[in-house]
């Protein structure tokens, strides 16, 4: 029966495979290969690891690497734990938990580019919401041009990653809902309060999903672009230059080989992060039964 379907099945797979090959596989191998070429509008010339050496030797690229690393560290160490905290609290089904869940998730449904304008308004030196609040609570001396001062620009942008916490929260809440009630009942009988239950029961069972959220946040921070491009553009003086922003800059300057070498750094860091987090959180291993 299945033999007669074979031709139809391969035909049915064709559109997806054609799209996948043309726009994902082929570009991927293109950047891999051409990162070893000098590639400008005029043509291609093999130069070995020259692109990589030039990058590591430049002033801009190490800042991009450093800023990306800081961003990832903050996303993993601050934003994911915050998502866990909020998810655990909301899973206690306090009054109004559904409304909070919707509110926290809403910013994830808004485009990065629209949010970028929100940040411009929020951080604006002259009329911005943040400076307005600081004035109202008597902290005028804290006011500054948040996005365009060298010392604060990167941290001001990283803070905006808070808007992604809602997605991780939703994913973690879905996982908490699958924990069998009996486990908690036994703990309640033993007189364990909610904090004890969460520390000793919920958290250990969330190991897998926390790892998944960390992978998500690392890969998302690696490719994040809009909120930087539309606000600081990587400035002032490379203070907010990230790897993806640096890729775009090289592309715009027609240094395509260099752009692809930066792209390869994004690929390698992404793969490394996924492997490390999978190992640390032992993702893929079953944890009960």
């Amino acid at each position, binding site marked *: 029966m299945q033999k007669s379907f074979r031709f139809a099945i391969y035909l049915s797979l064709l559109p997806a495979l054609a799209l996948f090959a043309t726009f994902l596989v082929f570009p991927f191998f293109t950047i891999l290969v051409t990162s070893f070429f000098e590639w400008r509008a005029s043509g291609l010339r093999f130069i070995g690891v020259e692109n990589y050496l030039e990058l590591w030797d430049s002033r801009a690229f190490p800042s991009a690497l450093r800023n990306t690393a800081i961003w990832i560290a903050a996303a993993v160490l601050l934003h994911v734990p915050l998502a866990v905290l909020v998810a655990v609290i909301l899973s206690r089904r306090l009054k109004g938990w559904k409304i909070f869940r919707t509110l926290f998730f809403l910013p994830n449904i808004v485009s990065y580019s629209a949010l970028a304008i929100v940040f411009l308004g929020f951080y604006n030196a002259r*009329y911005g*919401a943040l400076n307005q609040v600081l004035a109202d609570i008597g902290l005028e001396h804290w006011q500054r041009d948040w996005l365009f001062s060298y010392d604060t620009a990167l941290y001001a942008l990283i803070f905006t990653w808070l808007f992604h916490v809602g997605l991780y929260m939703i994913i973690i809440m879905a996982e908490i809902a699958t924990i069998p009630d009996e486990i908690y009942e036994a703990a309640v009988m033993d007189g364990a309060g909610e904090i004890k239950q969460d520390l000793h029961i919920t958290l250990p069972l969330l190991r897998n999903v926390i790892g998944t959220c960390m992978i998500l946040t690392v890969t998302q921070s690696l490719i994040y672009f809009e909120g930087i491009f539309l606000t600081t553009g990587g400035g002032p003086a490379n203070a907010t230059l990230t790897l993806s922003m640096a890729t775009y800059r090289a592309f715009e300057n027609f240094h395509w080989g260099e752009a692809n070498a930066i792209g390869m750094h994004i690929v390698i860091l992404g793969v490394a992060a996924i492997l490390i987090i999978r190992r640390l959180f032992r993702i893929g291993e079953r944890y009960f039964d």
Partner: protein
Amino acid sequence: MSGALIERTSGYHRPVWLTISYYAVLAWFTVAMLFPIGWLVLAAFKTNAEILSASSYFPIDWNLEGFEDALTEVGLLGYLLNSFIVSVGASVLVVVAASMAAYPVARFRFRGRDTITILLSLGLVIPLTALIVPETLIIRAIGLHDTRIGLILLYASIFLPISFLLLRAFFLSLPVSIEEAAIMDGANYWQILIRIVAPLSGPGISTVAIMIFVFTWNEFLFATLILSSEERRTAQVAIRFFQSQFDFNLPGMFAAITIVMLVPIFVFIILQERVVRGLTAGAVKG
């Protein structure tokens, strides 16, 4: 939904200080997340002078001039229409291509089946920002630069892996008996796919289509790279030019942003459960 979480707390009374702490965290988080967006939406109803003076959070009179300017001065309606065409086109294309691939992978044994699943799962983690040079040049090479078709094809490919994996999981969850009966009756592959499986797959297919609609509606980078002419700009690309277009008309710009944000928010509020289910399934299985 396993549900009975309320029962978890039966026989246990939460101390007041803990309840207060819970709400304190939630309140702080609500303010941190919604204050910036709320501030911008309120500012859209202010006058320019009011915004610049930074005197109050709420507008003195709620005036709609900003929204009038947004809709009439910069061609926002045209950009929204462009976004709509591209997002609908991409969602339809990706759902058709991904279903045609996910169905046989979920149901039949054939050479290369597992390889396809593994390859497409790997496609999920390719960092797309790294691919801007080849993507742009490929679109140019096949003569689709600055066309909606080019952007639709690119979007369909970018979102193919996630759509494929979600639809595969969905097809695996469908009972196989009706299809078996149809095969007994001599139906061919396409008849089964189009007449039997497609009508049964409404929930799965529409969840994926809605997600891809929102994703493509919000996409900025590739839209900026592919669409260069003003009359094809999507709403997200238009945002890049708002600052110069609106010059110093801040309410106009903020109103335009508010309108662009509203579309996915409406989709989300109406179809919340479905979007959330799709996103969590994607994350957990991906």
